[in-house]
Structures are given as C-alpha cells and as structure tokens.
C-alpha cells in the first residue's frame, strides 16, 4: 500500500488533482471517492473528466446513479449517495462489463467498500475545520497498479510548485 496526503487549497486545486488522475488513468481503473457532503467529490471527478479529454461538465449523477462520459476512455461516474443497502449496490454490477472496460469514479464508495473492487485507488476528502475553502485529500492505493499510479502522481506533483 502506498499513500499520499495533500492539502487542497481551493476547488481548482481539487480539480487539478483529478485532472492528473484522468491523464494517468488506464482501462479498468477504479477510483473510490469518500468524504462528507461538499468536500469536493464531484469537483474531483470534473478534473478526471477534463484529464480524459472530455469536453463536458461532469455534474452530479445523484439523480440517475450512473452517468457515462466518452473521452480517451469511457468514464462511468457513479454515485452511491441514494443507495443505503448493500444488495442495491451489488445489483449495479460494477465488476462487470461495460464498467471494467472503462474507468469508474465512485462517489460515496464507503457505502459499498466490501463489494467494490478490492484493487483500487481510494481518495478520502475531508474538511479543514479552520479554513472553509481548504480540503485534505488522503490518497491510498490497494494493488500493484495503483501503487504505480501513486508513484507516478508523486513525480508529477513534485514538479509543480502549488503542492506542498
């Protein structure tokens, strides 16, 4: 397991982190997003969408649960917010095609951790109690592919001044 902790000073910086992830993403990648209402999960996905070369706004998929985007790779933006029951999440079949052929970014993933893919990149977003606009992102890899991803991410971020 490799991990990384980042201070995100603005929604823009959250999007920038997402954009790097979108650029690094390869087929079958699973990004699990965890965090309170308003910590920037959808904002991060907007960055992933951008990084995949998709010229669209990723808006909240809460209403339809799964929203599809087509860029360099298909992106499935999934929101478990309304699903409180583990069978309902299993019924989505996220471990099957077409989802495994693209990239899955799953919001409120903590609701289904037991049944979501074991190998994944987990991004936990949290509020900073002192600064309203600041968030902390805790990035954690499970599996070799994602350890590699964290290493690549570290290299990229070390070249940019905005990351401390």
């Amino acid at each position, binding site marked *: 397991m490799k991990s990384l902790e980042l201070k995100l000073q603005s929604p823009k910086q959250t999007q920038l982190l997402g954009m790097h992830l979108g650029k690094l993403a390869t087929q079958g990648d699973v990004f699990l997003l965890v965090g309170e*209402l308003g910590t920037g999960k959808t*904002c991060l996905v907007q960055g992933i969408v951008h990084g995949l070369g998709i010229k669209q706004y990723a*808006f*909240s998929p*809460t*209403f339809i649960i799964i929203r599809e985007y087509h860029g360099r790779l298909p992106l499935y933006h999934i929101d478990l917010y*309304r*699903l409180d029951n583990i069978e309902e999440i299993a019924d989505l079949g996220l471990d099957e095609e077409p989802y495994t052929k693209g990239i899955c970014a799953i919001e409120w993933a903590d609701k289904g951790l037991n049944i979501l893919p074991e190998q994944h990149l987990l991004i936990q977003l949290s*509020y900073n109690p002192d600064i309203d606009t600041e968030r902390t992102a805790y990035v954690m890899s499970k599996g070799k592919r994602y350890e590699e991803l964290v290493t690549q991410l570290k290299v990229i971020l070390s070249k940019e001044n905005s990351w401390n």
Partner: protein
Amino acid sequence: MKILGIDTSCDETSAAVVADGTRILSNIVASQIDIHSRYGGIVPEVASRQHLLTIIPVVKRSLEEANIGWNNLNGIAVTFGPGLAGSLLVGVNFAKGIALASGLPLIGINHLEGHIYANWLEREPLPVFPSLCLIVSGGHTNLILMRGHGEFEHLGRTRDDAAGEAFDKAARILHLGYPGGPAIEEAASSGTPRFTLPRAWLKGTNDFSFSGVKTALWHLIHKEEILNSPARVADAAASFQNAVVEVLATKTIEAARKLGVRQIILGGGVAANKPLRYRMLDASPVPIIFPPSVLCTDNAAMIAACGYYKIQQGLTSDYDLDVVSGLSLD
C-alpha cells in the same frame, strides 16, 4: 385526438389520457415516496420492481377514469429519458408491447420536454412563443429557449447539483426528511433568512451551481449549533431556500430580458416552490406561467400532452426505441 401517456422515469409510476394535448381525461400517479423516504432517496432496484408491479393497474385505471378503451386512443407516448435506466425500461417496454399489439403509433418523449408541456394542460390561453423555460427538479436545472413546438435551444444547466437535489441534500443536513423540497419550504415558512449563504452567479453564462451553498450550509450547522434548536433550523432552511430561489429567479429573469421572450415557463418539482413563484412573479417583466403543483412533479399527463404535439408534427418512434438515461434536450 386522445393520447395515452406513460412515465416511469423515476419514483412514480404514472399513466394518463389527454385529449388534444390540453384536456386531462385521467392522470394516475402511483408514488413510491413512502417506500423511498425510509432510505432518504430513491433506490433504483426497488424503484424498477415497484414500476413492474404497478404499471398494469395504473394504465388500466387511467383508461377507466377516462372512460375509454384501446380503440379510442390515437397514440402511446412514453418517457425514454432522462431518468433511472431500470425504471425507464419498464415504461418503454410496456409501451412498445401495447403499441405492437394495438397498432397504435409509439412516441418516445424526453422527460424534460414533458415538464415544459405540463404548461399546455388545462390552460386558456395556451403558452406563446418564444418562451424561456426554467426546468427545476430533483434531477434537472435547465434554462431552455423554446421558439416553437419541438424547437429548443439549451441555454444553461447546473454544473454540479440540480436545484431539487440541493433541496434534498440540505434537508438531509438539517434532518428534515425526504422529499427535501417541501420539507425545506415548510420549515422555512416559520424562519427568517438571517444567515448569510453564498450565491454562485456564474456571470456571463446561463449556468447554475448549487454545491457551494450546500457546502456553506454544512459549515453553518457545524459552527452555529443549528440542529438543537427548531427555530434555528427554520432560519437555516429559510436562508438556504432564499439563496437558491434568488439565483434561479434573478438569472432566469435576466436571460428573459436579454432574449426578449414573450413569456417565462416554469416546470419540474421545484416549480411548486411558492417563494420561487412569488419572487419571479414580482420581478419579471413578462408573464410567468407554471403548472398547478400536481403537474409540476412527475406525471404522465405532461408526457401525453407532449406526445400530441409530436404526432401533429409526424414525429413518431420505431419499435427499437431504447432508453437513454442521460438524455438531454440538445
């Protein structure tokens, strides 16, 4: 001309018979709110199973109440998107089945367009063109220019949460229950909007954003100890509602002025929100029209009304009509 409308896009199973796109002969809505309120939202598999159970009795009742049989119908209009894929499938497949069996024309309807056509029901005189349409619901926040029947230009939409979704999430933050729109409106009615919450104006665009105000509400309840006092919850609800309504009304009216439209049309569940209606009626330079509350929320009469105007234009669907969960109006 009589059209049977069917809508299963979200958590209501609905069937209706509408004459000439304007007169409601029946409008049956079987709501699943009781089932879903336990979960604080819609559960997709529960929703599609419920649609399967209720669709036949609901369609039968719509024909009985309209006092007509299959032979008196001239077409079947059904929502094919946007919505929950599993739920949409129930309505679309049912409609295809009866269209095939009866030989009646099948008309696939965009649910968003349906919300606009709710304004053609039981109204005298009918809406005029060009109109600016604001569709606000749990899944949508769209500003659309309508130049004529079927002639739409999508001007703006939400960049994050839909307005109704923001109400639902705010209600959850304030522990006010589901559905959030009516819950916030009721709590707000005894409060004053004394808390400052941000408005995302997104100047120079017709887009909206409601995730910032939701986040600000979250910060507010953690800083001000809101939840242990019903009076403070009411004030927080009023402040939240005020922020959302102000942005919706101001941006819509501004766009209407710029475009020089003859009318503003509201639709969708949030259009039932009274402070939104009053604010728009107060500030608009052109007439504002909106459906009665029962026709703001999802219903099949609006789908049938829209179907009538599609048939008039010769726009029917083939039997390979498929659901499009993320359908837009472009």
